[in-house]
């Protein structure tokens, strides 16, 4: 029997190939419409879109770690967040995210801030709603990546002039992180 070549026989691409943004935009639009048709409320729609994002996140994490870090997994929380801000964002959107901050009064919550989300770089009509659809998707991607790296969290997207991804880690993740830092001292 002739051996068929499957995807596993090919080497992983370098990820440099590109596609027309219009093609992605029309696909994304159809995806949002599909989510709308199967949802009752606005929250449902965003949950669905975030779910699509998570599917992308799990796979993207495998691809990027394999390609960029040679199997080494980031174990420190801040290192992981920086990895998302720079490497992951560059792979997905061609540039780094703008800012990473920790909320002053809450040691479990971090903010990842992006001034011009992918969609905004090309469009001149920023609309809160549109940005939110896209941000819900990206939030799903972040959540899945952090989850794959064993940092349990909930990511939500907010928008005022810039997109903020609010990353809320579980208490246990922060406790583990502090213990890790203490033991290294």
């Amino acid at each position: 029997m002739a051996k068929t070549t499957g995807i596993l026989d090919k080497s992983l691409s370098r990820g440099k190939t590109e596609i027309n943004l219009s093609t992605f935009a029309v696909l994304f639009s159809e995806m949002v419409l599909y989510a709308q048709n199967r949802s009752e409320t606005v929250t449902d729609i965003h949950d669905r879109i975030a779910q699509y994002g998570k599917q992308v996140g799990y796979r993207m994490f495998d691809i990027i770690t394999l390609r960029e870090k040679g199997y080494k997994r980031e174990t420190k929380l801040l290192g992981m967040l920086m990895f998302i801000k720079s490497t992951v964002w560059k792979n997905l959107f061609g540039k780094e995210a703008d800012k990473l901050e920790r909320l002053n009064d809450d040691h479990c919550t971090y903010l990842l801030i992006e001034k011009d989300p992918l969609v905004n770089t090309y469009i001149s009509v920023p609309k809160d709603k549109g940005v939110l659809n896209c941000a819900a998707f990206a939030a799903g991607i972040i959540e899945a990546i952090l989850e794959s790296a064993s940092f349990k969290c909930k990511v939500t997207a907010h928008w005022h002039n810039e997109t903020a991804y609010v990353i809320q880690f579980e208490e246990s993740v922060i406790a583990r992180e502090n213990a890790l830092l203490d033991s290294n001292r």
Partner: protein
Amino acid sequence: MTIYNVYIFDREGQCLFYDEWFRTKQSGLSKIQEYKLVFGMMLSMKSFSERLATADSNQTVNFYKTSTYKMTFLESATGIKILINTDPNANGIRELLHKIYQAWTETANSAARLISSETEPDESFLKSRVKQIVTKHPCYV
């Protein structure tokens, strides 16, 4: 030289966009009625001129001209029709129409609109874009 006004119609004859700049005299019709008649006139000119054509080929109607104005037509292969009224001696209007078509597609198909799945194009945005294009044209005074 002057550019008076512009109409954009979809395939079904729905007026998607209208704006005017130096239109000092109105037709005296309601806007809806005017759109209908403009579109109807263009369709009739198209079909009748096709009937009169001397050879069987894909011909297009490009413009009609009176002593005081010229109406130039552009029809995309997708059936979007753009009509513009200018001074009878204006030139470079075909290129201008194509730029307006580009602005229209960009607005109607902008990633933002698609991603937000809004059905209505952003009217004010298109208006400012078209205005920008028209005022830059050498025939706009």
